[in-house]
Each structure stands twice: as structure tokens, then as C-alpha cells.
């Protein structure tokens, strides 16, 4: 079910412009005609399951891999031809934090700082990523979340305009994940552009201004979360705890309702006209002298979009 990607424009404000990128490993088409654009100052997400080609795409943009064909411009530079100039201006956190095991946090930061002509001090980054207690700890003794945070700190060491974060919160506990989200938010407020990959729906919804959904080496669809959802799901669902006196025939007769479902003791009404349906529901319940419990209006989620696009759930 191929879907047209949004047309590639030559937007002058694009920090990344990728057109028809291909990369094949043996029989595997890791990247199979990927095109998208990231605008200056936005957080752009590549969302897809493991093996969708997100990491390969990102590593081509970081100058770590050579594409078989296609165009890739980052900060206006051809990635393949100007990899060296580019590397000074971007920040990179690989999918797996790669750290010298026997060096301490502050030593690793100072080491990476020395690779660049400009940047942030180790103390500043330690403060920013909340690594103060671990500053003299060897990286081999850090927890998974701390390692990820240090990897993000290293991505910021040259104060880059554009930051690549490959699965930045994988392996983090919920608290650590939230604090990393806060850091991404503050970088965005600061005017940085960020390309992140994730297979967490929630992360993409919360962090990303725009998203490209990837599967099998292709971009299936690109847009804001609202665009992606409303483009294919115009109806919303109205949910509440089941009330026995209201049977399905009465529910189906409410204004705007197109269908009725039951999920785990919840009634789910699908409607194209939420206010009318809610009005009818409240009137009917009020007549029974009761109140609807756990009333909720929900639009479709990225999960539903992915399911609709691929026929599969995104979760591993």
C-alpha cells in the first residue's frame, strides 16, 4: 500500500534535504527510495519499527555511510562530498552509546571537546545533562540511562546547529526518558534543529513537530501528528463506562454516531460530530438520573495510523 510522500521542495530553510536515497546490503534494501526534508528549528522524527531503515538513513546523513544513490544535503552541504566540513557542525548520538570504558565522564567530554574548534565546556554539559554526581565515574560503571545521557552530552559538545539522536531513550526508565525529553524541548527552544529516530509512539507525539513514518526502507507518510491522523481518521471515539440501561440500539441512534463497539467494559462510539454525540449522550444519561463515568473523547493515534498503513502494530 504505497503512499505518496510529500513532495520535496527546495525550501531554503531546510537543514536536511533527502531525495530518493538508496542503500542495499547484499539482498537487503535497507533504504529504498527515502525522501524527506527537515526545516530549521524543528524536531523531526523518523518513526518506525526496528529494521525499518531509520538508522541507516541517519548514518548516511552523519557521513558515516555512503549511499548507493540519491541525494542527501545537510546544512546545505552534500553529505558525501563535504563530510569533513559537515562533521564539525553536527552533533551525533549513535543508537548505542560508544564510550571509552576506562575514562571518566569529565575526561570523555574534554576529549571530545578537543576535536572541535568551538563548543561547550564539560562543566556546562555535565550540569545540563545532570551528570554532576558521576563526573569522575568511569563510563564502564554508568547505568544504561546515564550512558545515554552522556552520549547526548557528547552530541552537544560542539554546540551544533543540527543534532542527530538515534533512539535516544532506548533502555531508559520513565523518569530518565522524561528528563531527556525536557532537554530536547530546551534545545528546540534554543533554535536547534533535531532529527531523532524512535520506535516509541508517545515519544514521537510529544517531541516531534513533524514525523516521517518508515517501514521496510521507505517513508510511508510525512506530516505533523495531527495531519497524519486526520488525513486518514476523520472520526473520533467517545468512550465511557458501560451503562446497562443504554443498549446499543439507543446508542447508535445518537446524533453523529456511525458505529458502536464495546472494549473491556467501555462503550466506544465512533462519531464525526463530537459535540452532537456528547450532547445526546449527556441528555440520555441525565434522564436516567446518572452521570457518565470516565467519559473521554479520543482521536486516533499514531499507533492507529501505523496499523492502518502497514497492517501491523508498531510495538515490537
Amino acid at each position, binding site marked *: 500500500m504505497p503512499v505518496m510522500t510529500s513532495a520535496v521542495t527546495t525550501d531554503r530553510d531546510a537543514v536536511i534535504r533527502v531525495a530518493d536515497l538508496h542503500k542495499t546490503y547484499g539482498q537487503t534494501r535497507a533504504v529504498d527510495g527515502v525522501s524527506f526534508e527537515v526545516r530549521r528549528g524543528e524536531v523531526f522524527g523518523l518513526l518506525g519499527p526496528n529494521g525499518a531503515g531509520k538508522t541507516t538513513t541517519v548514518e548516511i546523513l*552523519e*557521513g*558515516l555511510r555512503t549511499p548507493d544513490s540519491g541525494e542527501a544535503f545537510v546544512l546545505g552541504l552534500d553529505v558525501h562530498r563535504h563530510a*569533513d566540513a559537515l*562533521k*564539525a557542525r*553536527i552533533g*551525533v548520538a*549513535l543508537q*548505542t552509546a*560508544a*564510550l*571509552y*570504558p*576506562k*575514562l571518566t565522564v569529565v*575526561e570523555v567530554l*574534554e*576529549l*571530545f571537546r*578537543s*576535536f*572541535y574548534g568551538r563548543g561547550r565546556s564539560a562543566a556546562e554539559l555535565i550540569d545540563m545533562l545532570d551528570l554532576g554526581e558521576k563526573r569522575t565515574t*568511569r563510563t564502564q560503571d554508568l547505568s544504561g540511562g546515564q550512558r545515554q545521557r552522556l552520549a547526548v552530552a*557528547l552530541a552537544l559538545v560542539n554546540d551544533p546547529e543540527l543534532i542527530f539522536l538515534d533512539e535516544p531513550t532506548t533502555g531508559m526508565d520513565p523518569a530518565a526518558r522524561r528528563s531527556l525529553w525536557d532537554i530536547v524541548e530546551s534545545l528546540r527552544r534554543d533554535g536547534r534543529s533535531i532529527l531523532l529516530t524512535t520506535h516509541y509512539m508517545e515519544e514521537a507525539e510529544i517531541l516531534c513537530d513533524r514525523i516521517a513514518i518508515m517501514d521496510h526502507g521507505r517513508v510511508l507518510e510525512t506530516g505533523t501528528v495531527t495531519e497524519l491522523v486526520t488525513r486518514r481518521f476523520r472520526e473520533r471515539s467517545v468512550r465511557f463506562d458501560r451503562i446497562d440501561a443504554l443498549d446499543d440500539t439507543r446508542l447508535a441512534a445518537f446524533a453523529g454516531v456511525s458505529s458502536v463497539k464495546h472494549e473491556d467494559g467501555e462503550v466506544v462510539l465512533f462519531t464525526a460530530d463530537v459535540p452532537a454525540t456528547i450532547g445526546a449522550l449527556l441528555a440520555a444519561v441525565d434522564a436516567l438520573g446518572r452521570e457518565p463515568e470516565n467519559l473521554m473523547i479520543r482521536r486516533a493515534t499514531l499507533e492507529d495510523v501505523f496499523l492502518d498503513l502497514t497492517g501491523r502494530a508498531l510495538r515490537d
Partner: protein
Amino acid sequence: MQALLQLTAANIRSFVRDRAALFWTIAFPLIFIIMFGAIFSGGGDPTRTYGWVDLDGSARSGELRAAFASVEDVELVDAAQDAALEQMRAGDLRAVLVVPAGYGAAIEALATSPGPPTSIEVYTDPTQTNATADTYRIVAGVLDAVSLAISGRGPAIVPAPRALQTQDLGFVSYLVPSILGMALMQLGVFSAIPLVADREKLILKRLNATPLRRWQLVGSNVIMRLLIAILQTIIIVGVGAVLFDVQIAGNLVLVGGFVLLGSLGFIALGYVIASFARTEDAANGMTSVVQFPLMFLSGTFFPIDQMPAALQGVARAMPLTYLADALRQTMVGGAAFSPLWVCAAVLAGFLGLCFLISARFFRWQ
């Protein structure tokens, strides 16, 4: 430049914090020296065995011989001068004493009227300072006693010092350059392991995402290893000199040159191993496979000319043979297995070959 220095510092920190690496590069060669040194030191030297060359043949020279022979532990071997010197050169004699023709007549003259003292020639190997000092102590004691008996006054006979470079080294003197060569070889070959580990841990890939140049990465590794090579040289030579009295009589510039050339060659061999080992475990295995034949077939522990003929051929193919040979020649004046220029050419060729192979096959990720 800043990046190169920081990366070198990072390499040194990682190295120093790795106990296994420290053991193999510093402790292991020291254990070898101390162990072999304790077993063999003092053993190889002929103790107070002197060649006796009597060109005078008088009664007076006979008396002198008797005086020497009466000293405890001194053993005299009568020989013609050429034969005696040849034996000494081969290490069978510690010194050679030559009584010149006319000695008897000179003594007779001194016994009746005062005059300038006469002399006998004393050949020693000045590079073996302890043995030389011991010889002169014995000689002085005997000559003083004999002089007193003859004239009752000051010295009638004095030693005329002669130097003779011997080629036979004490076993520890033989061993120290060998162990140094072995240690430099291990230092270089073991560079494969952290390199493969860094690649496996994606550190090389992460570095590749920075503006760091590859020559800076390789350069920092090489600088770190060369600094350790210099440290190893100082420690090994120092321990040999202090504990086992090994005399360093060579040209320090040449010694340093061969230390650097040999280290570079074996570091390049480490990169060759890292080119073909995919995992750290594989790199560990491959370094063992490479280092043990080098260690045992390069005349490290036994002189090559004492090996069976077939193994001598193998030894000639080992680059470590030429490094150890060059170090023996330049440090302690050991007998040449190959001329120095051949050693230098072989080591330079070995470095070039390893460099080309790793430039062709080394993978960063």
C-alpha cells in the same frame, strides 16, 4: 594538535587503567629478567682464570708466576700470546697477563740500584667493569708484594693496562637486549586488542562522526606506544644494570633508533592483526598465535647459533631476530648475527610491509 594530545592522553589513561596491559608490558619482561638473572648471574663467567704469557722465560718471571698462582682462586693458563688473547676473546679467560721479554734483566737491575719500574701487560675487557676491577685488585696485590721483596722500596713492577673487547656476554647481558626486544614486540602486537575493542564498542565509529582525522587517531596510538616503549627500555635496561650489573657500552643514539624502528614495525603488525580480527576475543587469540613463535624462535632465550639448523632458518625469517640482534650489538657489544645495516633494512622492510597490509585491509567500522 589539541585533539592529538588529548587523544594520546586518553590512550595513556586507558592503558594505565588496564591492569592486564600493564602486566604484560611492564611486569612480564621484568619477571623474565629477574628470574633468569637470578638463576644465571655469576654462573657463566670464568672466575679468575687468567692467561699467562711468558715472553721472558727467566727465573724472575717464574717467581712472578708462582706469586700469582699462590693467590686463592686464581688459576693460570699458560699459552702463547695470540692463543691466550683468542681464548679471552671467546670468553674462556677473564684476563691475560703478558710478561715482556727483558723482564728478568730489568728486575735484576732494580734489585741493585733504584730506577724506573718495569711493567707487565694486563688485558681485560673494560665493558665488564666488575671483572676488570677484580683483576686489577689481584694484580696490584701481587705486584706490590713482589716489588717489596725485590727492592724493599717503592713499586718495581706496575701493570700496563690493555683493553680487549670480548664477544662472550654473560647470560644476563645476552638476555637484557633479548627481553627488551621481546617486550617491544609484545607492546606492538598487543596494540591490536584495544583497537579491535574500540571498533567493537563502536568507539571508532563515534570518532568517525567527529572532525577528528584518521591520522590523528593512528598517530595518538603510535605516540602512546612509543612513549611506553621508551619507558620499557629505561626500566628493563635499568633493572639489568642495577640488579645484574649489565654494562651498557653501546651507542645510545643507535639503541634508541632501533628501539623506535622495532616498536613501529611491531605496532604495524598489531594493526595487521586488527585488520583481520573481528572481535576482541579473536584479537586476543591472534596476538598469542603471533607472539609465541616470535618469542621462542628469535633467539630470545638462547643464542641462535646453538639452535638446530632447521630452526636457525626459521629464526632468520623472524623480524624479532633482527631487532634483538641489533639491540645486542648496540647495547652490550654482542657478536653480530647480521650486520647492523641488514637489521635496519629488515626492520624497515617489515614496517613497510605491515603498513601496506593494514592500510589495505583495516576497517574502521
